[in-house]
């Protein structure tokens, strides 16, 4: 039996040889674990799902050896074991309970998420690349443009530049990428859909805003209309715009954006023809 820690502490500490033995066992178990799952060892295929309990048991043994010998719980006061195991078992219990709750949910909770998933930045870049290529090709077919984007331009630049360059190349605020703001700090993409960029369902679809904006508010240019709709969305709401939750889009939503950032967004949205 484990005896009290107080007297003759040294005597109950394992010796150097025992420590080496413990370390060897730990190494051996780790090697076995590795061989179990290493495809070239050829064991993993025959194990199937039984590899999971096997690995869990082996790891639990390693865990127990470290706390028993390296952390001296085997030789130490039982109170230490209790306070530690309380946390350990509670963490285990709560974890198992959470997994059970998530896995036993009726229905298909993931389907909801999958339907509404926004492609991530990397994918957005891929898509933007393809789109930019398509546009460049279309533009080249229709009217040969002298200022085609250089082939090595980044896709985002290509996207933002192509449509506006012809009309007003100077209006783009330097260094700010409208699409990046749209998906990132602005958070617009969570609610608004733009073909190939985002798929939000809450707010109006902005995929063709570049063509629609000019006719939205009589007497206001497309640019000013979009600027106002971002800065002060409730000032004017065009008729016939499809909004899932009227009133949710307020000036507070965009208060965190600087005017330059809003201008970058305007340019990006004008490009959505």
């Amino acid at each position: 039996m484990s005896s009290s820690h107080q007297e003759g502490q040294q005597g109950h500490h394992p010796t150097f040889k025992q420590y080496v033995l413990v370390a060897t066992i730990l190494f051996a178990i780790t090697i076995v674990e590795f061989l179990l799952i290493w495809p070239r060892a050829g064991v993993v295929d025959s194990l199937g799902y039984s590899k999971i309990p096997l690995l869990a048991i082996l790891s639990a043994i390693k865990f127990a050896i470290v706390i028993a010998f390296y952390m001296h719980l085997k030789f130490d006061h039982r109170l230490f074991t209790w306070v530690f195991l309380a946390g350990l078992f509670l963490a285990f219990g709560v974890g198992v309970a959470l997994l059970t709750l998530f896995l036993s949910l009726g229905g298909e909770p993931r389907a909801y998420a999958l339907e509404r998933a926004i492609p991530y930045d990397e994918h957005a870049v891929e898509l933007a690349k393809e789109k930019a290529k398509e546009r460049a090709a279309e533009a080249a077919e229709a009217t040969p443009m002298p200022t085609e984007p250089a082939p090595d331009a980044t896709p985002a630049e290509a996207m933002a530049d192509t449509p506006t360059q012809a009309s007003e190349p100077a209006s783009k605020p330097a260094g700010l990428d409208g699409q990046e703001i749209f998906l990132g700090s602005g958070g617009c993409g969570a609610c608004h859909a733009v073909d190939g960029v985002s798929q939000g369902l809450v707010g109006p679809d902005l995929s063709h805003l570049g063509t629609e904006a000019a006719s939205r508010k009589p007497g206001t240019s497309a640019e000013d209309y979009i600027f106002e709709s971002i800065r002060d969305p409730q000032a004017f709401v065009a008729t016939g715009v499809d909004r899932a939750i009227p009133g949710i889009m307020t000036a507070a939503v965009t208060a965190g954006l600087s005017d330059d950032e809003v201008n970058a967004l305007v340019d990006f949205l004008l490009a959505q023809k």
Partner: protein
Amino acid sequence: MAHGVETAHHAEEEYTTTGLNHRKLLMWVFLGSDCMFFGALIATYMVYRGQSLNGPYPIDIINVPVTTISTFVLLCSSFSMVQALAATNKNDQRGIKIWLLATAFLGAIFIGFQVVEFNTFKNEGLTLGANLFGASFFTLTGFHGAHVTLGIIWLLGMFVLAVKGRVGPATALDVEILGLYWHFVDIVWIVIFTLLYLIGGFDAGPAPASGG
């Protein structure tokens, strides 16, 4: 605590109701608390396991053989930590310095492996925002890495004290408490290695709806 050597420094803490040292008890209770911390992080990873909507998935980038090596390194550091404590108890001044430094060094190698791993993953497109796997993987292993880093700083602090000759049987408890923290970080890694690498390292795409 009959350490054989009385010290003025710790004389005040001698009487306790249970006979256990305050600080050692504090460390054990804290480790119980830290179990809950890592438990919640691991639970997040497990709940989101196989739920990423797009790649890169674990099977695309997790490199089990390399991480097995870094796991060995961390296990070695636990061994050198117990040697540091044994040397402290024996007042083997040279041993104390060597083993403390060795432990910190092995810990640093482990962190080095982690830095390289994170970099590789980043280059392969796994970022915090890439998918749920990226978010939960980096958060969990990142906080473990932060614990290891803290342990290394603590070890180096203890090494400085050892160089000044202020570590010996009288302060064995300080080394022991440091050791408890270090071994805890090691056992957390045992769990992470098993769940994220050995078992979860071969996950691909969204898992087909399975019963468990």
